[in-house]
């Protein structure tokens, strides 16, 4: 990679810039193309899921750590932000608190859980996710439990005297752009971390943890750091969700939602730059298209799509396209050479 970096040629760079500009233009134009309330609602959901999956991909794509309780951290962030802003905090502070709270819970979970390997780690994250949902349900004094938390204030942002409240029930475009901004930030963070020393340490751990340890990488501390960052990012997404839906219930943060995030990550393509965009877009679109069917039938079709995609493209959609591209290029090289 560093060799390629030294003689970085002009055309691939231009190509990448072109893609980023096109992607940004599409994302900005999207709420005006899909201009129904449902369409815009879906776009906000996709953007929030992009944030979550970008964070989760640091664990799954980056370090090969299959965390199955990720939506619990989103829940922690959502409740922290909702309760604090309800108590009078400003929205940006509530959001910051959500990140800190989720990262803190991530630290408490990650320190013991990351001593475990493979399936053992996955099951513990999964169980912790269930425990957090049970706690959110049972701490009725704080969270109002299964009745749900109502009366969460809309997000208000104040910049240089300009003030705006996002009344998301009737007006979704503004809030979509807010979530889009954070989604872009999350993707940028994932991409930068992937190319940093930290990201290379993670991918060494993914390849062979003992080998990584033997060449002097502090594998345990690196994994804990990744886990805490991913949890913090999930907390941010939780805060954005809380002030969008303005209603929270523990049902939104169950293990099923964690599975969904995991599926989005793998189906989009774990460890790819665009995977965290493609996965949520694909799955949110598919499940909303299936909404016209009976619920049970739609789940069957959803399951079939899941299996077909994973059998045809085991490296996810983006991973599959990249491999196909590489094979075509290799084929052309042979013909030319």
């Amino acid at each position, binding site marked *: 990679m560093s060799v390629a970096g030294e003689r970085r040629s002009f055309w691939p760079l231009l190509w990448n810039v072109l893609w980023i500009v096109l992607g940004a233009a599409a994302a900005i134009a999207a709420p005006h193309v899909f201009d129904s309330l449902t369409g815009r609602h879906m776009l906000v959901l996709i953007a929030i899921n992009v944030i979550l999956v970008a964070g989760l991909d640091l664990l*799954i794509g980056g370090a*090969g750590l*299959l965390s199955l309780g990720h939506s619990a951290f989103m829940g922690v962030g959502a409740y922290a932000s909702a309760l604090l802003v309800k108590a009078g905090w400003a929205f940006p502070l509530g959001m910051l608190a959500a990140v800190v709270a989720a990262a803190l819970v991530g630290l408490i979970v990650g320190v*013991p859980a990351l*001593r*475990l*390997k*493979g*399936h*053992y780690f*996955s*099951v*513990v994250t*999964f*169980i*912790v996710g*269930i*425990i957090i949902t*049970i706690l959110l349900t*049972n701490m009725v004094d704080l969270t109002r439990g299964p009745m749900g938390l109502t009366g969460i204030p809309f997000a208000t942002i104040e910049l240089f005297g300009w003030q705006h409240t996002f009344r998301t029930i009737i007006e979704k475009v503004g809030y979509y752009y807010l979530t889009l901004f954070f989604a872009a930030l999350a993707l940028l963070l994932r991409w930068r971390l992937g190319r940093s020393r930290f990201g290379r340490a993670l991918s060494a751990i993914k390849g062979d943890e003992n080998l990584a340890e033997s060449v002097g990488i502090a594998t345990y501390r690196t994994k804990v750091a990744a886990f805490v960052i991913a949890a913090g990012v999930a907390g941010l997404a939780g805060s954005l969700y809380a002030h969008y839906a303005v209603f929270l219930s523990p049902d939104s943060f169950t*293990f099923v939602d964690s*599975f969904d995030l*995991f*599926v989005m990550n*793998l*189906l989009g393509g*774990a460890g790819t730059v665009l995977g965290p965009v493609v996965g949520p877009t694909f799955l949110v679109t598919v499940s909303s298209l299936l909404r016209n069917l*009976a619920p*049970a*039938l739609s*789940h*069957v079709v*959803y*399951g*079939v799509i*899941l*299996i077909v995609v*994973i*059998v045809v493209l*085991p490296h996810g959609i983006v991973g599959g396209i990249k491999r196909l591209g590489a094979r075509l290029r290799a084929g052309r090289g042979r013909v030319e050479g």
Partner: protein
Amino acid sequence: MDTVVQLVLNALHATSLYALVALGLTIILGVLDIADFAQGALYMVGAYVAYYATEAVGLSFFLALPLAMLVGSLLAMTNYVAVYRPLRRFSGATTFIAALGLLLILQNLALLFFGADFRLVRAPFSGVRFGVLGATWTGYQVFIAASVAALLLLTWLFLKLTPIGKRLRAVSENREGALVVGLDPFRVELVAFALAGALAGAAGTLASGVNAFDPSIAAIVVIKAFAIVIFAGMGSVPGAILGALIVGLAETLTGGLISTQYAELTAFVLMIVVLLFRPRGLFGAQEAKL
């Protein structure tokens, strides 16, 4: 004292059913690194086979049991050939997605065809009652315990004595070594799935007489069973059985003596605490062994 004995007795027959599913999961995990969540669906199908065979067709419950085992193992083999085998070269994450997809499909197909109503099968020997230390056990509960014990024993004998059982253990102890000496992995893996499917189907049928069920039982059962496998140590057969009993006892005792609200929490916290001190599970060896 009487309540405690009664609770222990209840826990014993209820969790012995988890042990069957856990055993199937651990066999598959040993042979192939797949967390086969679709096993929960086979348990659910086993329960419906019992329901329709006895209520609609009028078969005896004792014939429904082997029928459910047959259906379970056929379904498990289909899953393996159609989905898991094409994915065998890929990581646990990829196969896990496929497993979740299969669970989703089977559970919702059941919802479409069997409906969401809770069912309960009329169980044999329910009228018979035994008094044990001041608590009571129904004849059917004794039948469950005896059937589970018999199935566990048969599985153990199958793995220890038959040639294919020995091959199965060989592959799960050292996959490369087994392939080097010329074992056909396809046959061994197929047998592992057939065996696990039969166990799950039997567990579903046996449970159908004591616990009312609907299609969502599939996910609930497999999650509990998988947690038990991990808690006990992957690949350990006695571990899967003892693990199921420990988790079941902890859950029933907290549920009965403290609060049902925290019953699941206790079981899960117990599992995590054990894993912190024994990172490969309670009975897991350094290398997984069947």
